[in-house]
């Protein structure tokens, strides 16, 4: 912490934000971070309000990615259900704000929507964690919950499916959600374009720094300890179920906030948020960026969404194939994600200089290629000698 050499009252803050559970703690990291933030803040001036409004979707998704990084990357609980809480909050916001109408309705809808998604996460989490559900079973159950929600929302096309004056609308969803706004009639702000962009950026920054403080706190140690060995951690007197439930509920709230912003961004809500494809997307973001890194989750989100946008314009039918390929490649080749990878390269360069780094890189790449070739070679070779793969892996 001392290397920051900031005035002493910042030391306390720095101490809370830095720690073993985040990758970037050095002065160089924070300088790079500040430069990055500057670029992000300046973006609307360079590209205009419309582009900023479009790009703000990536930042909205960034909140969803953070929620998954906390629950999966830090606590080791793979949840396919973050999009469920995201969707529940979005739908709730739509229903409440459209029923009440006006800016006041929107202001009231925000806490209600987040409360409903938080409560949903709490109830599901309670049944899972206090029911002794673990590992892959959590992943399966959260996925099933999401798919059941899709089935439910898809069959609400009839006029009998309405809450107050708002029809759920089946596949067509709920249109006409207004831009994000807070306040009361006469004294309110409504956000779109650059304004919405900066607002979401501020929320994302807050969530990121808050997340850093969380994972570097005592609580963060408990999360990581549970990820590494839940049984051992219980034997140190930690109430593992309660910690899991708490972080799952918190993640549900964060996903809910993201869902509300999403519904006001696109001005509609439809069941596509509960599909298996959309449920996978956050996992792709977080896997690519680095699941044990909060910043990685956000960076991964922006990269993937930028590329998905490119595909949807230029080769829409290959977008999903691309997502699948990314998912498989990253897990197989770079299981910790790109940000930890970059950090390793940075550390290596610092210690050994660029020359050694290039040599080392060549060795690693050669080894990888050889390994890959041998895998394929084994497939082509006689199936009666599969034990040779043992040798390869050594």
């Amino acid at each position, binding site marked *: 912490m001392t290397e920051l050499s900031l005035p002493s009252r910042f030391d306390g803050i720095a101490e809370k934000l830095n720690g073993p559970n985040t990758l970037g703690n050095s002065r160089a990291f924070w300088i790079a971070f500040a430069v990055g933030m500057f670029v992000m803040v300046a973006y609307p001036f360079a590209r205009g309000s419309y582009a900023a409004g479009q790009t703000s979707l990536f930042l909205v998704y960034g909140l969803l990615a953070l929620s998954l990084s906390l629950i999966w990357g830090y606590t080791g609980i793979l949840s396919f259900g973050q999009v469920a809480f995201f969707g529940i909050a979005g739908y709730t916001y739509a229903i409440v704000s459209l029923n009440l109408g006006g800016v006041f309705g929107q202001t009231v809808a925000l806490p209600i929507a987040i409360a409903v998604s938080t409560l949903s996460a709490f109830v599901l989490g309670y049944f899972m964690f206090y029911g002794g559900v673990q590992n892959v079973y959590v992943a399966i159950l959260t996925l099933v919950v999401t798919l059941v929600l899709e089935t439910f929302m898809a069959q609400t096309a009839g006029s009998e499916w309405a809450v107050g004056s708002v029809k759920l609308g089946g596949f067509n969803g709920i249109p006409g959600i207004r831009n994000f706004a807070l306040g009361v009639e006469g004294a309110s702000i409504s956000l779109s374009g650059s304004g919405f962009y900066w607002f979401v950026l501020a929320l994302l920054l807050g969530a990121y720094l808050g997340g850093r403080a969380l994972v570097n706190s005592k609580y963060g140690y408990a999360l990581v300890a549970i990820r590494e060995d839940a049984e*051992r951690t219980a034997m140190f007197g930690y109430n593992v179920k309660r910690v899991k439930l708490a972080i799952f509920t918190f993640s549900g709230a964060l996903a809910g906030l993201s869902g509300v912003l999403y519904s006001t961004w696109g001005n509609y809500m439809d069941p596509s948020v509960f599909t298996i494809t959309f449920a996978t997307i956050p996992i792709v973001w977080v896997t690519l960026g680095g699941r044990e890194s909060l910043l990685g989750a956000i960076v991964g989100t922006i990269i993937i969404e930028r590329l998905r946008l490119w595909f949807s314009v230029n080769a829409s039918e290959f977008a999903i194939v691309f997502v699948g390929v990314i998912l498989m490649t990253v897990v197989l080749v770079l299981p910790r994600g790109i940000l930890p990878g970059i950090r390793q390269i940075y550390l290596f360069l610092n210690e050994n200089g660029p020359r050694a780094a290039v040599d080392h890189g060549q060795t690693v790449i050669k080894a990888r290629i050889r390994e890959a070739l041998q895998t394929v070679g084994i497939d082509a070779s006689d199936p009666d000698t599969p034990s040779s793969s043992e040798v390869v892996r050594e």
Partner: protein
Amino acid sequence: MSTPQDPNVREQPAVAATGSNRETILSTKGLTKKFGGLTAVDNVDFSVDEGELRCLIGPNGAGKSTLLELITGQLTPTDGEIYFDGTDLGELEPHERMDAGISVKFQSPHIYESLTVEQNLHVPLQRTSRDIEPVMERTLDRIALTEKADEPASDLSHGEKQRLEIGMAITLDPKFMILDEPVAGMSIDETGDIADLIQSLHDDGMTFLVVEHDMEFVRKISERVTVLSQGSILEQGPIEEIENDEQVRRIYLGENA
């Protein structure tokens, strides 16, 4: 997380006192655990006195590990009760039992491989100590890992991992320490280190229940020995008596010879 449990619990009187003049800290009554058709622990009445260093021996499959897991709460008994320090453990979750003063080192090292040695110790420490640094230093010194404090735990040798896990368990400052095969797979030197560590903790007043196969080690540290066979207590007493017992020799020690 670190909220203490119901304050009433510890004030209940101790039960099932044995003939010893010391207070009983742990006792079981009719403890039974069945797995399908197999009875792993069969109607066991067992007790350990405060400040004792008890060894639990017996052939493979005698039910030793099952008995330990019933005490820690990883397993739920089919029948019977366990009392610790006057509390009925039956209602308590594993983590609540640890709060009550039990601590455990598992058979195979259970440490956080991806964390450093210091971070490993940090996990139990932050629950129990306000002032972490001095306890951290003392513990590192005690388990002789001060030099390796910043190394990832995955880089440690088997013996060092065992020491680290014991270190983690003692930072909870337990009244009752369970060690499941603390010297399995260790060199003679390492075994000696562990014996010294256990002795020094025992001298400080910690109660131990140790499962171990290494009879040399048992002879070195133990006061009293309990022999478990086929889920029941076969014999109990000082180590010299046990080693000369015909039945025990036939069933257990004979197997080792």
